[in-house]
C-alpha cells in the first residue's frame, strides 16, 4: 500500500523560505515514520535532513511534529494515519534545516538546574580502595525512578505553550530532572537547585496545561514533576520566611 506524507522543508543556503514537499511511498503495518524518512532519503530525495539514531525510542533524536503533535519518528507508525500526514520540525525551537532544530537552549536549561547528585559532605566519601555504595530501598528508588526515565527528546518543550511564549522558562524536562535529583534519597542539593526552580522562569511559569505529559513517549509525567516542584518551592519560601534565612530551605532529612 502507498501513502503520501508531506514534509516541511527548509534549506537556508538555498532559499530563505520553507516549503512543503510531498512524497509517496510504500508502507506496511510495521512502517514507522522514521522508516519512511529513511526511505525518502535513500530512494526519493537524498537532501532531506533529519536526526535519528537508535530507532527504538531510547536515544531521543527523532522528535518531529506529526499533524501538529510532537512525536518520536521511530515510535510513530503510519498504519495509525488515514488521511493527511504532515511532518514539521519540533515547534518552539529555531529550525536549522528541514526537520533539524537547534536544541542548544534545551541543553542550557538542562545544565542550569544542576542535574547531578549533590552530596558535598558525605557520611562516607567514595574511596576507590574500599568502595561502598549508598543504601537506597526500592521504595526510595520508586520516588524518583519515573522522573529518571526522561530521554531528553524535547517533545515536551514543543508541547508547552509557556515555553513557546517565553523560551527562558526552564521547561518540563529540565525541571523534571531537577525534581528527580531532589527526590533522590542520596542527594542533598535541593536548596542549591531551589535558586533556579523557585523563580518565575523556574516552576512558576508553568500553568499546568499538562500537554507535556500527554506527549511524553516515556511516561515521565513532567507536568507532575513541575507541580510537585511548586509545592517544594512554596515550602522553601515559607521556611525561609519563618527562619528569615534564604539558605535554610533544605527540606530533606538524611533518610
Amino acid at each position, binding site marked *: 500500500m502507498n501513502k503520501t506524507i508531506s514534509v516541511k522543508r527548509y534549506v537556508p543556503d538555498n532559499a530563505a523560505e520553507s516549503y512543503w514537499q510531498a512524497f509517496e511511498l510504500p508502507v506496511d503495518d510495521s512502517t514507522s515514520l522514521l522508516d519512511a524518512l529513511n526511505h525518502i532519503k535513500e530512494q526519493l530525495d537524498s537532501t532531506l535532513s533529519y536526526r535519528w539514531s537508535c530507532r527504538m525510542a531510547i536515544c531521543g533524536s527523532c522528535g518531529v511534529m506529526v499533524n*501538529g*503533535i510532537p512525536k518520536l519518528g521511530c515510535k510513530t507508525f503510519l498504519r495509525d494515519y488515514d488521511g493527511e500526514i504532515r511532518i514539521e520540525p519540533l515547534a*518552539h*525551537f*529555531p529550525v536549522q534545516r528541514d526537520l533539524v532544530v*537547534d536544541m*542548544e*537552549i534545551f*541543553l*542550557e536549561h538542562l545544565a542550569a538546574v544542576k542535574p547531578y547528585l549533590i552530596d558535598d559532605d558525605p557520611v562516607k566519601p567514595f574511596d576507590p580502595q574500599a568502595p561502598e555504595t549508598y543504601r537506597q*530501598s526500592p*521504595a526510595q528508588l*520508586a520516588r524518583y525512578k519515573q522522573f529518571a526515565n526522561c530521554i531528553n527528546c524535547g517533545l515536551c518543550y514543543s508541547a508547552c*505553550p509557556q515555553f*513557546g*511564549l*517565553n*523560551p527562558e522558562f526552564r521547561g518540563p524536562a529540565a525541571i523534571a530532572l531537577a525534581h528527580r535529583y531532589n527526590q533522590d534519597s542520596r542527594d542533598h542539593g535541593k536548596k542549591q537547585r531551589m535558586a533556579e526552580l523557585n523563580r518565575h522562569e523556574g516552576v512558576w511559569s508553568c*500553568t*499546568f*496545561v*499538562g*500537554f507535556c505529559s*500527554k506527549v511524553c513517549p516515556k511516561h515521565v*509525567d513532567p*507536568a*507532575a514533576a513541575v*507541580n*510537585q516542584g*511548586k*509545592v517544594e518551592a512554596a515550602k522553601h519560601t515559607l521556611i525561609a520566611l519563618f527562619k528569615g534565612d534564604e539558605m535554610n530551605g533544605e527540606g530533606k532529612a538524611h533518610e
Partner: protein
Amino acid sequence: MNKTSSQRLPPLKRNWWLKHRFFKLYMLREATVLPLVFFLLCLMAGMVALVQGADSWQGWVGFMGSPVVLALNLLALAASLYHAATFFVLFPRVMPLRIAGRSLPDNMIVAGQWAGVVVVALLFFWLLGRA
C-alpha cells in the same frame, strides 16, 4: 560549549490555543474562573444588602431570582464542578500520597476527593433543612 543559542523564535501568536483540542480544554478550565467571579460578586452584593436592611435584602433576593442571574449561577455551578473534576484528577500527580511506603492509586485519591464533596454537600443541605 562554544555555541550560544542566540537564535530565538518569535513568541507564539495570541490564538495559539485554538490549534488543538487539548489546548482548548485547558483554556476552558482556566475560563471557569469567569462565571465563578460573577457568583462571588453576587455573594458580596448579598452581604452588603444584608447590612443595608430589609428592603435592600428583598431587592437582592429578587435580583437573584431573575432568570438571567439564575442561568449565570447555574453556569457557575457547572463551571465549578468542571474545574473540580480537572483539579481532582491533577491532585494525585501534584501531591502523591503514600501510606507505609506504598503510593495510593490515583483513582482512589480522586474518588476520595469526590466523596469529600458529597459529604460537604450533604452537611450543607442538612444545615439548610434545619434553618
